[in-house]
């Protein structure tokens, strides 16, 4: 069970704005990438730890979260480094959806009502096993689409690197 404060995003939060181009050539590192994460999304986040200092645990977004292309993993590590434990959105851009799975950061598809009923700062609770998202502040509850078994398995390993490293070490086939 994860509990914490949420930030509610607008439509079309682009990967470009989560990590602005100046930082694409930085090393992929949660601490480093989290310093300027979301710098292009809102002016108030465009300073060192501007997003991170809000101590958000969840992001609630609408369509196409982290879209607009870019396969850079800095987007995911930046969010994780800033303390984000799950993102709920109506839809996710494919490239970052894949990266999120590989890092074990839950990108959870939820419905429109979830987004409409949430305000930044609301206290949420996420029960990953049951796929239930509770908005404690508003007293509402939503169900998410359950993750595929492979996705849960990768998350339980702590990401694809660990998942594969473990298989290689044990000499198990990857299939």
């Amino acid at each position: 069970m994860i509990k914490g404060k949420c930030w509610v995003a607008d439509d079309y939060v682009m990967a470009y704005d989560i990590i602005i181009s100046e930082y694409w050539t930085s090393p992929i590192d949660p601490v480093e990438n989290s310093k300027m994460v979301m710098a292009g999304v809102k002016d108030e986040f465009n300073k060192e730890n501007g997003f991170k200092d809000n101590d958000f645990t969840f992001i609630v977004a609408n369509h196409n979260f982290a879209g607009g292309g870019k396969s850079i993993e800095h987007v995911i590590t930046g969010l994780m480094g800033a303390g984000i434990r799950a993102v709920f959105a109506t839809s996710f851009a494919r490239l970052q959806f894949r990266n999120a799975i590989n890092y074990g950061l839950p990108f959870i598809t939820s419905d429109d009502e979830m987004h409409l009923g949430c305000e930044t700062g609301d206290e949420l609770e996420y029960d990953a096993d049951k796929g239930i998202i509770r908005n404690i502040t508003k007293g509402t509850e939503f169900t998410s689409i359950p993750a595929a078994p492979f996705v849960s398995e990768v998350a339980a390993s702590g990401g694809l690197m660990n998942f594969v490293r473990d298989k290689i070490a044990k000499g198990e086939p990857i299939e």
Partner: protein
Amino acid sequence: MGMTITEKIMARSSGRDKVVPGELVWTDIESVMTMDFLGKQCFDKFRSLGKTEVFDKNKVICVSDHLVPPPTQKFANMLNEWREVVKQHDIANFYDLGRQGIAHQIMVEQGHVLPGTISIGTDSHANTYGAVGAVGNAIGVTDAAVAMATGKAWFRIPKTVKFNITGKWQPWVMAKDLSLHIMGMMHWNGHLLYKSLEFTGPAISSLSMAGRMTLCNMTVDLGAKNGIVAPDVVTERYLRNRTNEKWDFVTSDDDAKYDMVYDIDISDLAPTIALPGKLDDTVTVDKLIGKKFNKAFVGTCTNGRLEDIATMAEIMKDKQVHRDVNMILVPASQTVYLEALQAGHLETLIKAGVAIDTPSCASCAGLHTGVAGDGDIVLSAGNRNMTGRMGSREAKVYLTSPSVVAASAIRGEITDPRTFDI
């Protein structure tokens, strides 16, 4: 029930007779591409998996494209580290400065992508590989590291959407216009999210390899998993001198199941432009006639090929770029550069006042030569127009085809190449 071409490729690459959309499989990878600004991290991660040798030294393709030649000391140092790590792993196919090109162009042009197989790359426009009937997919550094170690990647089988393209291409109307038209029609990352897009029909059969690459390239910007054109005589001719590997003409079954089928007649398709900010905000050229701009750019993995340069040269021959416009052409690879030189196109363009830069991703990702400054209005044949994409967040980028950029650069305002006096 039959399978679509993408399903067939995913099935054969995962050692199965059949796959269905939604299924999750690990597939064999034909080639893994990585490039200068992410490559070192791929190799570092790869070694952290406990491996020292890549799965196949001929199938890990390394390209210098985003940072070359280095415009800053930071980039110069990154490139030195990159060269060192490529050397350390004894990679056979390293396209460094001097042999460089934009990675996706290199992958197809140098025969590293084969019909009926899957290739991946650590850059979003890896979808380009679909032009030769392969599944091309963009992945992150993690997936690349895993593929370097194991020769495999995981995929969820996508549903396929078919675009049946009919009609005759009008003069000066290009594959880019069709891409932008579909972008406007389907909207950005809407219905096509996670889908495989299959392009078929008479207007695709008659489309050159360069055009097919443009079309497949931009499917990532539609939110799709991949875009693909089944191999045919155009593919065979294109690959004849590029690879000695065997491949076959894999196609969709007649009874394959599609999520949706769209029919588009291109007979009256007009040159199309995406307005600054969002790719799916498109209009036909007539809505913007007379719009002034100060920078013109042709290049990128979308439109930096010989055919694009030839089209520009045809339009710009014996004319002059307008004095209020700076124009840059960046060929997509050294091979394209040489071919354009030998064909005389570069001479034509230089005489017209076009600056030619050495092959790289250039200003497309806002990292290299020709970036946009505050207040610039750029008419670009690239692939993205989001705020800040080509440099300043105060610049505006209009996206269109090379023929529109060429004709407009002469006039100094947006011009329909179909009515331009050539």
